């Protein structure tokens, strides 16, 4: 960061927007966010302090649940007065209360899917189909160049409605991740034009 802008940027009206990145554990959310973010990941433990009240019993079973739950966070400066934030939703069900908070006001959501562990993303698809008003798309993360399932199969496996866009991506690739973000904004834009009166 150049310090020369420190005065000017406080005086500037800046609009911030947000896209939610959802999907289960290990589907590539962290990889996608970090491939496009201009800032280092944050230690987001403080966001979850509310979670500890009353529900902080050790989760039953599951080896992974004892690790620190860091949530993915990214920021992209699109214009001098327009910032885009990316928030990854925590996979663990005991943090689902945070989904509502993180999703509120978002322009849309991306559900990331790994075809080797497609069940990991069922909950996220359910959430955005039934419990949220946000526009959303599904992006299939094809790392290792694997094409085990074509998109129609994935759509069937997720029981995804025809009007939900489904695309391929490689979360490690910055250009591909930017393409995913473009896809959700394009979808939101299309929906807003449909619903706009007149």
């Amino acid at each position, binding site marked *: 960061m150049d310090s020369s802008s*420190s005065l000017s*940027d*406080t*005086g500037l*009206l*800046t*609009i*911030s*927007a*947000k896209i939610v990145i959802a999907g289960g554990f290990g589907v590539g959310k962290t990889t996608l966010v970090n491939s*496009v973010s201009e800032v280092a990941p*944050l*230690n*987001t*433990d*403080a*966001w979850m*302090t*509310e979670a500890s009240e009353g529900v902080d019993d050790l989760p039953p079973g599951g080896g992974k649940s004892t690790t620190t739950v860091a949530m993915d*966070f990214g*920021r*992209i400066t*699109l*214009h001098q007065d*327009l*910032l*885009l*934030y990316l*928030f990854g939703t925590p996979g663990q069900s005991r943090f689902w209360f945070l989904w509502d*908070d*993180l999703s*509120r*006001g*978002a*322009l849309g959501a991306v559900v990331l899917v790994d075809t080797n562990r497609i069940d990991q993303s069922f909950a996220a698809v359910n959430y955005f189909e039934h419990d949220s008003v946000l526009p959303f798309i599904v992006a299939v993360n094809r790392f290792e160049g694997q094409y085990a399932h074509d998109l129609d199969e994935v759509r069937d496996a997720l029981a995804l409605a025809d009007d939900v866009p489904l695309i391929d991506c490689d979360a490690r690739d*910055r*250009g591909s991740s*930017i393409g995913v*973000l*473009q896809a959700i*904004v*394009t979808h*939101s*834009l299309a929906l*807003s*034009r449909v619903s*706009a009166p007149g």
Partner: protein
Amino acid sequence: MGASPRNGARPQTYKMKSKRVRPYALTGGRTRTRHHLLVETLISVPEFDPVLAEALMPESRALYTRACQRMSIAELSATLTLPLGVVRVLISDLAGQNAVFIHPTAYAYQNNPQVLERILDGLKQLPV
């Protein structure tokens, strides 16, 4: 600022040691705010007032100081290790005193496709 401390005890009450208090003790138990603050809402300080900063309790002072460099609610929470809800209440209080400025989010423009178009345009211009 507006409220002139007529009784000398007032500044004292703000000097409580807050190292180990329950998070919402800082807000007097309040969890709701007057201002609509999303996690991505940007906060800045139009004009830093060192006298005001000195009068604030430590957590509010830290937020006030940190927001001199325009920052989102989520980043303020993470960098100061304060719960999101506490940050919202304290920032709302600061905004009520006109000490901080709350920037608009894209959500406030949800009926205006131009903001989405600018976002898309910005994404298309990103260096790959």
